[in-house]
């Protein structure tokens, strides 16, 4: 059992995968506010004119994704890509869209923001940081579009970032911040690092 020293738990102790959480314990309550999963996808090199995809997170069990946002941590060269940027889920056999194919993010400024603010039938929303922008929310409505994911049993189900390139050198990094909560005891979303 993890011991919470005075001074520690509120600031530094994070809920970690595998930590046993008693029902209706303090941890159980506050995890319903949503757990953060952060992971980046770095794309550097000379690309062919083609479609590309990168797996960056793995889903277990059943989860509710509350907020799905990402941003360009680095946009040193986005002249050739990413065009047609979108997200989906892939269970090694089937693919399900998270956002519609796709948004042109070529020539974006660093720190530009991407968000799922509509259903999977809409493209991911781009807020280019070449100027101040807002998404104008309506009264009482959450701005992020949540979704429930039920992973395929017995197969690695992962979130993917897709884009196409018109061909040429690229250098950009998209970092994700996804807020989720479990809907069953095995529900979890965690970072995925592809084999190198």
């Amino acid at each position: 059992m993890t011991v919470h020293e005075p001074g520690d738990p509120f600031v530094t102790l994070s809920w970690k995968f595998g930590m046993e959480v008693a029902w209706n314990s303090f941890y159980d309550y506050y995890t319903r506010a949503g757990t953060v999963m952060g992971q980046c996808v770095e794309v550097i090199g000379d690309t062919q004119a083609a479609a590309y995809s990168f797996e960056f997170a793995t889903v277990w069990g059943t989860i509710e994704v509350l907020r799905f946002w990402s941003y360009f941590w680095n946009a040193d060269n986005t002249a050739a890509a990413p065009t047609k940027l979108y997200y989906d889920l892939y269970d090694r056999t089937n693919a399900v869209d998270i956002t519609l194919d796709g948004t042109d993010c070529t020539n974006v400024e660093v720190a530009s923001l991407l968000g799922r603010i509509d259903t999977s039938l809409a493209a991911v929303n781009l807020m280019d940081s070449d100027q101040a922008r807002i998404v104008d929310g309506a009264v009482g409505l959450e701005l992020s579009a949540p979704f429930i994911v039920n992973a395929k049993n017995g197969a690695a189900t992962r979130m993917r970032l897709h884009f196409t390139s018109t061909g040429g050198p690229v250098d950009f990094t998209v970092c994700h911040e996804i807020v989720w909560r479990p809907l069953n005891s095995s529900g979890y979303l965690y970072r995925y690092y592809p084999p190198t």
Partner: protein
Amino acid sequence: MTVHKPGSLLGLAAPAIADMVVNSAYCYISQLGTLASKSISVTGTPTGAQNVNLFTLVGGVEILRLYGVFSLVTDVSAVTAASFDLIDGTNPAVPITSAAGEDLSGCSNGSFIGRNDQAGVKVDYLNADQVRIIDGAVGLDLFAPLVANAMYGETNYIRFNYTSDGGGAIFKIDFELIWRPLIREYGLVEAV
């Protein structure tokens, strides 16, 4: 680092968002929204359109609630066209509420203004000359949130705007903005 002594931790303010350990208790609780507050005091004879910087914006954040309450009203007879906007110093301002604004010239101490609708609509105004309510619909929060993304490399401001005819103004407004980051290490609202 702030040390949270036993018995005091619930009363201590949280560390800065960027200093929170991801998925620590503070990180979870901060998703309810972090408070930024700013008071402005006006005394004199402002003339014409006035733009008051309230908060700076860096990166991408979700603004959950934005409102202000008059804590002093001595003379607002010339205060009209009150609104909020976002400006990056290079491009035209982005309205947060209708730029046409609300006439506050008859407001009383304790009056409320807030963004309770989309950017095309004037600030919601509850004059404290009598009891008033904002009548919420079933199942909906009362405020209209917005996502704001700053222009990179510029100082971006959330402003309170009003017009005064130079006839004199003495008032104070306490503004509060409740926000949460969309990218935890890269999103910040601070009072000017």
